[in-house]
């Protein structure tokens, strides 16, 4: 390779890399400047005495967000008067008034939390203690509680702050929620991180050139050699898998369109009445979940048999064995790519406004691809040694399907389990894709971190297991 040829390539890479970084910066700029904050209300357990003329409830609590925009309250209406309810929010220490509102009792929801928006956002007071004062002419009682979540598990929570009715301390706290947003300067990390990645890439390129000159080996050179030699095989295997899949079916490749549509149709009829009201764009929500889970399920099921099913080849010809699971995942990816077309159609039909965040979709797909490759490597290796993996995996997939919010809203997950849900890699990836397509916003940096962790982490685990065991595959086939 001529020297100036290499420099040209490097320059091209650098330019492309920084253009992509700039594009990324532009896409997430607004979405990474703030992050939504909503606090979790305690669950109803007791109700305060009726709030009549001259009585008042005071609840103190710490302010949860930089830019606090609304408060949600839960009250029962007995025989409400048409006198407005008075709400005041002030700083506890100084008594400085932050917001004052009058809400007609008829504006309260009969059952559940009602959002009361502030006339003006309360900014820059996060962490300070505020006091909410409620006065009404009668007919309503506010709910209180002492724990979060009563669904099987409940966690006692500390009182938000002092709660008094006419100056008398009351047990528990008001069932209330704060909504607002925190300032987030997520974008400031983009350029430094990009620079670090670029420097690392340059380092690898220069090191590889030096090794090549000195005739040394090295991981990158070996990988390049394998890629050069076997890329055509990979392509052939992918095309073969895809062709064999739809062979002898009348509609052929059309099934890649039809399958997600029909599945969505079925799920829609089953779950529409249950969850429709809770989810915006239920159809698109459902379909995106189904498509991603289908991909995961197909890639892992094919990957499971990637080594065992190619036993006749593996015991007769040498080639890098990871090519088999990888080819299975890639041929499923073709399917995924095709099923994105009906998804886009459904999204546009159901009135989802596409935002620039949709440009992040390739990134989401790369995360998915890496994650599924890791799983396929792991499963194909396990399958060689334990043939029961296939039966176990069938059950696991069903469990995984129910544990991932595909057809139900995330909000039905009890708060006590939210943390566990974040440990589900598939949840993170589906959340990411839904956020950029249906939500129209880029997720916050922490979600990117989770997605990278979920995908690259899974790949590393899968690869390590595969690499450690691959020499023994032939002995067990």
């Amino acid at each position, binding site marked *: 390779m001529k020297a100036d040829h290499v420099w040209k390539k490097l320059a091209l890479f650098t330019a492309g890399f920084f253009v992509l970084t700039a594009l990324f910066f532009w896409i997430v700029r607004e979405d990474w400047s703030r992050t939504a904050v909503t606090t979790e209300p305690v669950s109803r357990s007791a109700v305060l005495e009726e709030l009549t003329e001259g009585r008042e409830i005071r609840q103190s609590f710490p302010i949860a967000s930089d830019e606090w925009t609304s408060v949600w309250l839960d009250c029962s209406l007995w025989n409400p008067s048409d006198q407005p309810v008075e709400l005041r929010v002030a700083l506890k220490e100084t008594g400085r008034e932050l917001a004052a509102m009058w809400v007609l009792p008829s504006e309260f929801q009969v059952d559940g939390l009602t959002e009361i928006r502030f006339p003006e956002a309360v900014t820059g007071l996060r962490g300070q203690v505020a006091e909410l004062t409620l006065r009404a002419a009668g007919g309503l009682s506010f709910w209180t509680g002492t724990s979060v979540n009563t669904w099987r598990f409940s966690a006692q929570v500390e009182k938000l702050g002092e709660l008094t009715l006419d100056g008398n301390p009351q047990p528990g706290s008001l069932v209330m929620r704060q909504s607002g947003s925190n300032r987030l300067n997520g974008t400031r990390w983009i350029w430094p991180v990009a620079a670090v990645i670029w420097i690392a890439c340059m380092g690898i390129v220069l090191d590889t050139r030096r090794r090549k000159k000195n005739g040394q080996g090295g991981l990158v050179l070996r990988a390049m050699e394998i890629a050069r030699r*076997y890329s055509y095989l990979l392509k052939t295997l992918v095309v*073969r898998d895809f062709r064999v899949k739809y062979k002898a079916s009348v509609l052929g490749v059309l099934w890649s369109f039809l399958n997600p549509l029909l599945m969505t149709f079925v799920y829609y009829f089953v779950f529409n009445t249950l969850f429709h009201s809770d989810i915006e764009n239920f159809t698109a929500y459902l379909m995106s979940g189904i498509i991603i889970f289908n991909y995961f399920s197909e890639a892992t099921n094919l990957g499971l048999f990637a080594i065992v099913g190619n036993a006749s080849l593996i015991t007769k*010809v040498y080639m890098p064995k990871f090519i088999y699971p990888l080819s299975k995942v890639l041929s499923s990816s073709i399917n995924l790519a095709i099923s994105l077309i009906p998804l886009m159609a459904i999204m546009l039909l159901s009135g989802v406004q596409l935002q620039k965040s949709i440009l992040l979709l390739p990134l989401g797909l790369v995360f998915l691809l890496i994650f599924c490759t890791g799983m396929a490597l792991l499963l194909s290796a396990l399958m060689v040694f334990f043939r029961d993996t296939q039966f176990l995996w069938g059950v696991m997939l069903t469990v995984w399907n129910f544990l991932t919010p595909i057809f139900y809203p995330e909000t039905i997950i009890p708060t006590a389990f939210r943390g566990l849900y974040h440990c589900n890699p598939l949840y993170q990836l589906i959340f990411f894709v839904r956020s950029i397509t249906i939500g129209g916003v880029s997720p916050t940096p922490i979600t990117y971190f989770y997605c990278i962790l979920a995908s690259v982490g899974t790949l590393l685990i899968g690869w390590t297991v595969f690499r450690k065991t691959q020499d023994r595959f032939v002995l067990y086939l």
Partner: protein
Amino acid sequence: MEPIITVEHVTMNFRINVSRTNSLKEYFVAKLKGRLRYENFQALRDVTFSVQQGEILGILGRNGAGKSTLLKVISGIYRPTSGSVVTRGRIAPMLELGSGFDYELSGRDNIFLNGAILGFDEKFLHDRYDEIVEFSELGEFIDQPIKTYSSGMVMRLAFAVATLVSPEILIVDEILSVGDAAFQKKSYARMMEMMSSGTTVLMVSHNIDQIRSMCQRAIWLDHGSLRMSGEVAPVCDAYTQWLEAGGA
């Protein structure tokens, strides 16, 4: 000159799981009970030899002497328990005819699949395609799925692919003894052609006359050990004598 195949002190042990655990439950139960027993089977024992480019090496030995294991170690399918194997160039292993085929696909697709498995690229295979089809005598059947082929047709195709891509090293395990007389004659001629053009060939055959007539050198494996190696004639003589004496 540096040899094209160097086999140094290769030992291949197979750990045979006597308790035959094939499921997770059995495995863990056996492990907990301490009954996870293994037996060692030594298929190759400290084998050392090398092959120069263009050489035709015959491998002799009785059934179970380790010939096939040795070929699999050289092709990279098995990793030796100890010792090392260094090869330079592409290896086309013909350990079993038709093993790299997908029976659902057409003959045409299989030529490319099989070629790709051997590590050749699309352009190279396109250039050789016509020649391969012609040699295999498949004609219009080339676009039919292989599952509709007779075994002779599969064999012809496999032989055509493995020999016409001109690999640097060709490994032949007992395949010249199959097929009808006409095909045997044709494949024999093709093999001779390859040998004269500098391809290194390793061949296993129980037909001693075939080894004598085609090979220049031979090695003799007995119970996994290298018993003798050298010029083809003395090795074959010693082997035949040993066989006649009872071969134990």
